[in-house]
């Protein structure tokens, strides 16, 4: 079942004075798709999202949702969109229930009380529904923001850093909610730095840097694109900084990360470098407790793509 919305941007550009925040962005998100929108800080993600919502007017280009140009007065279209923004702001003088009912009314939700109760129970806020929102913790506000975004059962859900500020249990709740929305065929657009969460939820990824889309592909293909690298994790009995630096200087080591007496090495995957690592450890008479290969993940792919392979992948991966 697909009743989500299609999002398309054509040559989308936004300039603030001489600074170009978004440069000729061509996105395409199909109805029912879960799309991860990734990029470092200042890449242009939020600006793009604001243009999608009609808050910012593009300098050039177009935003089309279901083939309609998005404007601030496109009410019928905006009623089908739900937004969870990175920074949540609320009317502190209202209780959660009043706040939710206000938005339910704004979106002309049928049986708003029933819908509101179901959502607040889902995010474990039902017990606190009569507390003024000003007294909520950051996590509670985040969950309330979710409830607000979902109250009118939107066909397109735009989430900017959806799990930041949540405890592990809250993250699980949000993940399940998003999966449920996915199953209903909604279009999801998730912008996040917590890449492990995005990896579990999205099936397509777009990566933006310096205002340009440098890669847009299925999750599996993105993983494949970083198949030239793998990670080896080692745990020692004790480790000094000199040893870490020497290991980092090994020719096949792309990157080294230290966490106490453990290190994580990023190497190319043309061969198994565990043997070479083992020999070096013996040479240096280091006491190795554990060595293993780690699975590739999106975080590595992200770091790799934006810092190391930018020019190369810009030619390979961009649509």
């Amino acid at each position: 079942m697909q009743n989500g919305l299609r999002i398309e941007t054509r040559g989308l550009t936004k300039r603030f004075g001489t600074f170009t925040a978004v440069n000729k962005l061509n996105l395409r998100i199909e109805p029912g798709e879960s799309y991860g929108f990734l990029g470092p800080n200042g890449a242009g993600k939020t600006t793009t999202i604001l243009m999608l919502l009609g808050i910012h007017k593009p300098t050039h280009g177009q935003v089309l949702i279901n083939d309609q140009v998005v404007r601030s007065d496109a009410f019928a279209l905006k009623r089908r969109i739900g937004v969870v923004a990175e920074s949540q702001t609320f009317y502190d003088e209202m209780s959660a229930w009043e706040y939710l009912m206000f938005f339910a009314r704004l979106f002309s939700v049928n049986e708003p009380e029933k819908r509101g109760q179901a959502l607040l129970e889902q995010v474990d806020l039902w017990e606190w529904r009569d507390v003024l929102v000003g007294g909520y913790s950051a996590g509670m506000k985040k969950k309330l923001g979710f409830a607000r975004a979902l109250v009118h059962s939107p066909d397109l859900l735009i989430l900017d850093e959806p799990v930041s500020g949540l405890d592990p249990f809250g993250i699980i709740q949000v993940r399940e909610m998003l999966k449920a929305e996915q199953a209903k065929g909604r279009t999801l657009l998730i912008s996040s730095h917590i890449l492990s969460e995005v990896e579990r939820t999205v099936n397509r990824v777009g990566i933006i840097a310096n205002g340009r889309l440098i890669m847009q592909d299925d999750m599996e293909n993105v993983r494949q694109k970083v198949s030239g690298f793998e990670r080896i994790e080692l745990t020692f009995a004790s480790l000094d900084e000199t040893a870490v630096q020497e290991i980092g200087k090994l020719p096949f080591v792309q990157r080294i990360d230290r966490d106490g007496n453990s290190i994580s090495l990023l190497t190319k995957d043309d061969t198994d470098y565990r043997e070479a690592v083992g020999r070096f450890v013996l040479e240096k008479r280091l006491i190795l407790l554990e060595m293993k290969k780690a699975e590739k993940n999106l975080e590595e792919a992200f770091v790799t793509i934006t810092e190391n392979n930018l020019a190369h992948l810009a030619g390979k991966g961009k649509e």
Partner: protein
Amino acid sequence: MENTKAPNYRWHAIDSLQDRASQSKLWGLGVFISMTIAFALSSILLVNAMRYTETNLLMIEKQPLLISILANGILVSLYLALLASISVSRELDKGTLETLLYGPVDELTYILGGFIAHVKVFSLTLLGALIWSNLCVWLLNLSFRLDILGLLLASLFMAAELIAFGLFSAIWGGKTRNALINFILIVLFLGGVQIADFIVSGLVQIQTSTISDPLIVIRNVLASLNSTIRWISPFSQVQRAMQALINQQTGEFILNMGLMLLECALLLVGAILLLKKKGVRGVA
């Protein structure tokens, strides 16, 4: 789960916004305190008129409640206009306006919703003023005339104009502090010139034997200034409307009501266009 029988989207959004905004104004003591202070001042003015009657044994008036109702209307409408300015500025500062714009709300809807909310609250205070004036009529055996309703209507138009100005100054100023400063400065200027003109003219008449040239120059400057700003000042417009009502000059009453309505409309349109131009992120 959308209610497909939802009415026109824009008017529905305006209705939702004004309902929320007007309710939140009535959840605190602010409006009620301002009404109490306004009624207290009105009472002082009315009782002074009664004292005049006691001293002079009689008083001839078409409408002794005129000044009281006018003072009441000015105080409460200034408070609500200030409130409108502050609430819009804070929504811009905090980002709650942006959240609204994610949904079926645009600049026009938001401004109109805020405007209607504050005018609605003022109308409730007018109801209070009507009850107050009726009680005074009964307590003091004053004459009740239907022109009290006209006076209250003129107050409503003045309040609408001031509230529209409050909204405009919030968008114009952006940050709460700037919006407040703009609002207070301009209101002080408009009202202050009138009051200063009145006082200095009176001084010039009283102190003719010791008058100094600078005072006369000041008097002339204030009189000239007042003659210009009386056409744009809501305080002058409402005074003239009320006087026209008392003197049964329908044309003059309609003219001044029309002026207030026109300025109100211009300010609202200005606020909407300015918000569209600046955007919520640009304003804040």
